Every structure is written in C-alpha cells, then in structure tokens.
C-alpha cells in the first residue's frame, strides 16, 4: 500500500491542488507508485482511485496514454535512447544499434539478468548532446549525454557493480 509508506508525500501532493479538483494529483501519484516497483500494479491503480474518488478506469487508462508509465515490469533500469531526427542526424541510430549489440538484446528487450531494458524514444530535448539516453530506474530519471559506446559500457558496468554491492 502506498499509504503505508508514503503518507506524507501523498498529503504533500494532494495539497497542491484544489480539493474539488484533486483528480489532478493522479499523475504524481502514479509516478509515486511506479517508483516503488518500476511499474504500476493493479493494486496501485485501485488505491490511487480510492484516494482520489475516481473509478479505477480513470486511473488505469492513463498508463497506456503516457509513455513514461508502465503497467508491466521491465528491466531494473530502462535505458531509453533518443533516436529522433536531430539525434539521428548525429548518429543516434547507429549508437543504439551498437548498445544493443553490446547488451546482446534487441530494442524493446530486457537483458538476461533482468537489469536493462533498452528502448528507443522520441526527442528528449537534449539534441545538442547526442548521442544520449535517459535511464529510468529507482528514484527517477537521469540523463546521460554526449555518450560513446565506451562511456556507455562503463556506465552499465558501474550500475551492475553498484547493484551487486547493495
């Protein structure tokens, strides 16, 4: 239950919106739920619906609409490479291809150890620093810009290491 672990955060989120329009809190709460386990579970949908007096449908339907929400678990870290036009002009498609080979997966797949899911995404508003990707994992989303295959490899190794130590 989100309420058990995040009661204050939930209260803070709700405070931002007029009581009569508390439905506005649904996306922040979905992010909260997703941060817990990396995707939004059916229980979380029901709980959020209960918190906001909504039908679960009004909560659950958002997940498919917004690309940052997931209704299924993926890798522990989602590596999302921008391959949109400006980045592609700077070699992002090739870069994505190389990272795939390095991880031994196809776009959309998860590495065998369950650590990384690789996805290609639309413009991330960092076109001047291509190739780049964002990483969605515990705690939020981080940008990794001006990447090369080497720096990416190093990054991946550091994550694996870090996780092993935890």
């Amino acid at each position, binding site marked *: 239950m989100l309420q058990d672990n995040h009661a204050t955060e939930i209260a803070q989120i709700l405070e931002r919106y007029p009581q009569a329009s508390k439905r506005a809190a649904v996306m922040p709460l979905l992010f909260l739920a997703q941060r817990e386990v990396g995707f939004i579970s059916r229980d979380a949908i029901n709980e959020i619906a209960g918190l906001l007096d909504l039908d*679960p449908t009004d909560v*659950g339907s958002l997940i*498919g609409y917004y690309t940052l929400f997931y209704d299924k678990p993926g890798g522990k870290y989602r590596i999302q490479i921008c391959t949109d036009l400006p980045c592609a002009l700077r070699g992002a498609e090739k870069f994505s291809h190389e990272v795939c080979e390095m991880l031994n997966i196809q776009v959309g797949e998860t590495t065998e150890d369950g650590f990384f899911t690789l996805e290609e995404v639309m413009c991330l508003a960092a076109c001047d620093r291509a190739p780049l990707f964002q990483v969605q994992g515990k705690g939020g989303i981080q940008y990794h810009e001006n990447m090369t295959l080497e720096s990416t490899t190093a990054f991946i190794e550091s994550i694996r290491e870090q996780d092993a130590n935890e």
Partner: protein
Amino acid sequence: MSSSQVKLMIDGNTLEAPRGMLLVDAALRAGIDVPVFCYHPKMEPVGMCRMCLVEIGRPSRDRQSGEFLLDENDQPIINFGPNLETACTTRIDEGWVVYINSERALEGQKQIVEFLLTSHPLDCPVCDKGGECPLQDLTMLHGPGISRFSFHDKMNSLKRVALGELIILDRERCIQCARCIRFQEEIVDDPVIEFSNRGRSLEIVTFSEPGFDSYFSGNTTDICPVGALTTSDFRFGSRPWELNAAASICPHCPVGCNIILNTRREVKMGGSEIVKRVLPRQNEMINEIWICDKGRFAYSYAMDSERLSQPMIRVGGELEETSWDNALKVAAEGLKQSGANLLGLAGGRASNEDLYNFKQLIQGLDGVSMLNDFMAGGKQNQQIGLGPGSNLGDLGVGDAIVVIASDLLEEAPIWWLRVKQAAERGAKLIVANARFTKLEKYSAHTVRYSFGDAPETVLGMLHYVTGDSSLNKYAKVDGQEESARIIKEATNAVLFMGSEGSDSESSKRLVQACGSLLAATEHIGKANNGLIPVWLKNNTQGAWDMGLTPPEKHLAEEFRDRTALYLMACDPFGDNPEMLQELPQDAFVIVQELFHTPSVDRADVVFPAQSFIERDGTLTSGERVVQLFYPAVSPHGESLPDWKILARIGALLGVAMESTSAAGVMNRIAEDIEDYGEIHYRELMNREDQWPPVGGKQIYFGGTAYENSQGIGIRLSSRAQRGEAYEPVWKESPKKPKGEGIRIVPIVKLYDQGTTVLPSLLLAQRIGQPELVIGQEDADRLLLQNGAQVEVQWNGTAHQFPVAIDNDIPEGIVLLPRNRQLGLEMPMACNLTPVKPTSKEKGE
C-alpha cells in the same frame, strides 16, 4: 422576427432558427442532414470525428457600428474562412451562408470517410450493425470504390473484447468517436470506460470490477454508430432486417420506459418466435432514448422453459395438467362451494385490464380484493398526480425536485437519470433519506433522518412552510428549513416518494405529509408539479386506479379464516413461506401465474398466464401515464392473458365481464373509472414528433434506438387539475416503541432475486448473494468483519447472510435487499448472532 431567432441560408434554403443553435440541429430542422459520428444530440458536442465538415460564410461587419457591410448590389459581403468547419460544434448566427453539400464540403466529408475506412474491417456481412450502420450508409454515399490504403497496413486489433459479461467490444470496428465514453461520463456518471493508448492505437478499456460496471451499459450499444459495441445476448444473433419490431413497455419498474421487442423465428426453438433483443423506443416524456440494463437484459423470463404452459388442477394431492374447460369448471365449482369468504390478491405487475377484471370478478363473487403491497399513495396520486403536460426533461433553473425515502438509482434508474439531469440543468434537488444514496451527489440539499422518520421529516418542512407551531416538534434535522424554502420558492416542484424504511402505517403518514407539503406550497394541479410515488412494481398505480388497494391489516391477518384465495400475478407464499400457516388448510386456492411458484404449490387450480411479450394491455406508470404494449411473440403453450381467464371464470359464475379483447376491457374501464374516461387504445396509439429525431431515416443520428410510431401514451389528469381542492391531512406520529434492539430494513436492489430477473442468464453474475449491510458500531459490538456470516432472526424465522459494513448506517439498523422467500416486506425487529466459522474456514 424576435431577436433570439436568426435567419441564415443553408444550401440555398433560407431558414430561421434560434440564435446559438448548433448548426447540425438547425440544418436538420430544415430537413438537411449533416453526416456525423461523434455528435450525438443528447451529449455535448466534441467535434472530434470531423465528419460534419461544412463551408461557413459569415457576413462582414463594420467595426464601429456592427452593421453588415454591403457590396455594390447591396448584398452583405460574406466571408468564407480558409478551412471547413465542424457543423456539430458551431453555433449559428445572423446572416450566415452555409454549404453542406457543396463540392468543397463534400470533398472534406469524403476524405473523413476514407480515413475512417482505412483500418475499419470490411466485415459488414457479418457485423451486427450491418443494415443499420451510419458508416455503412455514408460509405455507400461517399466512399471510394477501392481503397488507396494498403490492405496490409490495416491496423489489426482484437475482435472480441469482453468489457464485461454484458458488453462486447470489437476493437477493429471502433471508430473512436467516444460516444460510449461520453455517455458513461456525461449522461450517467459511471465513467467506467475510457480511451487508453493513443494515436491509431487509441482503444477503449475498462478497469472497473465487474467489467463495465454500470446499470446503463446497454445504451452504449445503441449509440455506437458502428458495430463495435454489442450486447452479449444479441451479438451475432441476427441481422437487423430479419427482425420484427413490437412496441412494448418495460415491465420492471414504475417508470414505464418505452421499448421495442425485436423478434425472429428461431430454428433452435422449433421455429417459434423469440425475442432477440430489447431496445429503447423514443419517448422524450418518459425515457427519452434510454433504458436501464434490467429492462434490456431481464426479458428471458418470458421465454423461459419453466413457464407454466397448461392449466392444472389438484388431484389426490398432486397437481395435474388438464384442459382449460376442465380447469375452469373445477375453479368455478371450487369458488361456488368454498367462496363464502373469498380473498382476491393481485400483484402490481398485472396490466390494467387484468386488474380491472380481477376486481370485477372478486366483487361479483362478494369477495374482498386487495393489492399485494403495503406502500400507500395511490389515492393521493389520483388527487395530486403530476400535472398535465409535465415532462421531467423540462425541469431546470428555478425548479425543485424532492426525493424522499427512495434509492432512485436502484428502484427506478431512468427517473434517477432524469432527476440527475434536471439537477445538472439547474433544478434544486433535495434528497431526503436515512442513508447515503448516489443521488446525493447532485443534490443542492440533503436531509438525513433516522430510519422510519420520513413522515416526521416532511412534517418538519411543512412547519417551516406554514409556520404551524403544532408541527415544530418535527423540525429537528438539518436541512429541513432550507428545503422548505427551496420548495416554497420553486417555480415548479416535483416530489418523488418511496417506501424505504416505511411500513404500511408510516407510508400512509408519509404520503399525507408529502401531499400536504405540495398543497401548502401550491405545487399541485399544474404542469411539472406534483407527486410521483416510487412504486415497487411497474403497475401499482394502475392497480390503485382499478380500485385495488393494499390490505389495511397485515396480510397474515387477512389470510386467517379465508375459505378461498384467488391469486393473480403475486406469490405471497413465495415472498413469505410463513404465510402458509396463516391460511386455513382447507381454503380453496386459485393461482394465475407464469411460473411454478411456491404459491402454485399451494393451489387447487392453476392457470398459466401470458407474459407481457405475448399479449397486449396497458400499464399506468408512477407518473400516471397510461401506455400500451403490444404482442410480440405467439403465446407460450396454452397460456391466456389474465383478463381473459378472469372473464371466462366469470362467465361460468354469472359475473359478466368483457372477454373479447384487451381494448374492449379498456372501453369498460373508460366507462367505469372517471380518470380513464378518455383512454381508448386508439388514442394510446397516437404518435407525436420527437426532438431530437432519433432512430429514423436521418443519417444525422445513427444507432439502433427506435422511433416511436406506436404511441406515446396519455397522461391521466388528476383531481387537483380538474379543479378539486386538495384537503391537506396529516396524522400525528405515534410514539416510537423504545428499546427494540436492532431493526432490519428491506431495501431495493435493481438486480434482485425476483422472478423476472433470476431467469436472466446474462444478469446472473451481477445479482450476487444478498449481503446484510450493518453499521460500524454494531459490527464492532458483535465483533463482525466484512464478509463474516451472521444469523438473522425475525418473525420467528432464521436466515444467514454475509455482512457488509457501511459507516453510513446508524447503530441499531441493518439493511437487507428485498428478496423472495424472506418474508421481509417492511422493517421489523430482528436478532443478530455471529456465526462461528467452522475450524476449517478458520484455518484458511
């Protein structure tokens, strides 16, 4: 020309229409159809399908004076914008020049059809909507012969998605018009379906439990302009053009929704005609174009194989089938021999014709006839009623609606809907009940009283209206004063009165108080004012009008000492098995029924009656509108309409009755009963143009609702309207008995375990097991948790139920859905004992 009317030209025709009217509607008024998909006349326009693209020219105006600028020929200069515009979202203004069928506009419309067809499957030959589909019609009109869109690129989606067990979605056919979603959100406030994903992957989903959890879900299949949404009973069941359509009236509640029974001969049924689906029939006064799911899905009882098909008589303790002649003879003999102290008991489900003949027969045999009910108010409804020309759809700003002692959503869903909409239009809604009901969400005021205190609550309001100081002892709950003020100040006021928490005595006091309140605030005898009793049965008002009233005493007392009992359309022994003990063992019992009920088991003679789908007749709704239903299929077995059975027995016993036709019986009624003086079948068949026009030839509104060509019914006049003064009467409340312990209060659930609902396989999953609703305090005291089993005893009988805890329920009260075989018609004292879980259950 009044300033609110504007003149404009559409496709060369000059017309006048109210300023601000949507262009689609204005065009349709002038007989010009604009093709639409997302637009629906009952919903806010959204302009998302873009089908209704038209050319709009607006006159140029002088910046300073606002006058039209004129060209050299003194004609207004008309400006056409660079883009086509959507007729469904544009509100008309003076001097417009509109082209709906110009080359440019048609080109735009063609392009939209082409887009819609790119991924739409070409399964018209097997699609349920085929033959009544606007997309199909428009494709015929505009569609290209061949698609430029590559067949291989077609979006493939799931063809069978059960949104719930009632409604099936074909994702490939969906054209994303959102009519269904908007209906659920805007019209019925059950937002249980929504779009998810986006772009070409946009699709309808539900996360409700159970799926598509709404009492109104079936309506979405009517308004879906393509074959994307189908009901699971009709899906792939038939082609629309194979169906016959009989006009009928929904038999489930006192609203009296107009429906259509679509029938077809069915091989599986040996070539006999069966009902394939139930659809709403437009009547803007009654149900507009909607019906609830009970009305739509609970029809199969009429075709159930368990129906009685043959008369029966008791021979040597067993019921045996026999011929009509013999059964009638045995019945007549029995009545002659033991009818000295005859009680006739009829149910509020029978038609006016049946009830009238029933009354005639019992009276003719010097018996006593009664209505198997306890709620009062039929007489007051005859006196006050709802004024002539009333239409709940007219209530809005300045008006008031009071709903007291009723959970309208469960008891009469379409009234709930219309009251909700009136409140949304600005009518002030007052909801008075002893507990929360969903209607409160739309109320301007809620009045919460203790269970059983409804009459006193109204008397308290009356105190604030009249200042009568003898009533001030009743002015004690929040909201009474404000409600009184609202009702007093309202231009029009309508009061819905139910029976929740009432017994027969308090029900009488309640209706007297309500009548007095309406009289004191002068809301009687005129259009859109008056009383609507929320009856438990569809034709209870008709029964009162035919002269049948509930027993004065408890039914058990009425049964004692009877030598004969005649039952029609009611099942007192099924409702309460205890009643068997009350009726003398040797009393002679005749039963007219559809099913083999527990009452049939006690019968000496049983007559198989026809259901509403096999015959004609009239019903009188709670609003006192008399409406005609027509036969749709041939009779089951040898069954006969109730009125006819009665007439045939009467003939054997020398009681003369109309026996040729239901229309004939109505002629008798018209002669005999003042209020029905003008009612004849011919007049009941009158039709009237409905706005918006729905279900007709227009492509403007596709969908499967039916036009009303078979009669919109007649609203009975009340005595108040005929100038008779209404004498307010009310009784002082008796002292409440103290220290009674827990009271059990029956409540209504739409899907109950009644005879008409149980046989519906479709609704089976929604009916569920009845739960005992209990407040937190009592639950804590008895150490009960949600779902725990309790034993409840009342009236010497014991029953077990799981409990559902509801914070809203006060201490000392438990609620139980009304059901057969419970013997719980009115609130009564009860005893609760938790049932100890067996050791096995504990281990789980």
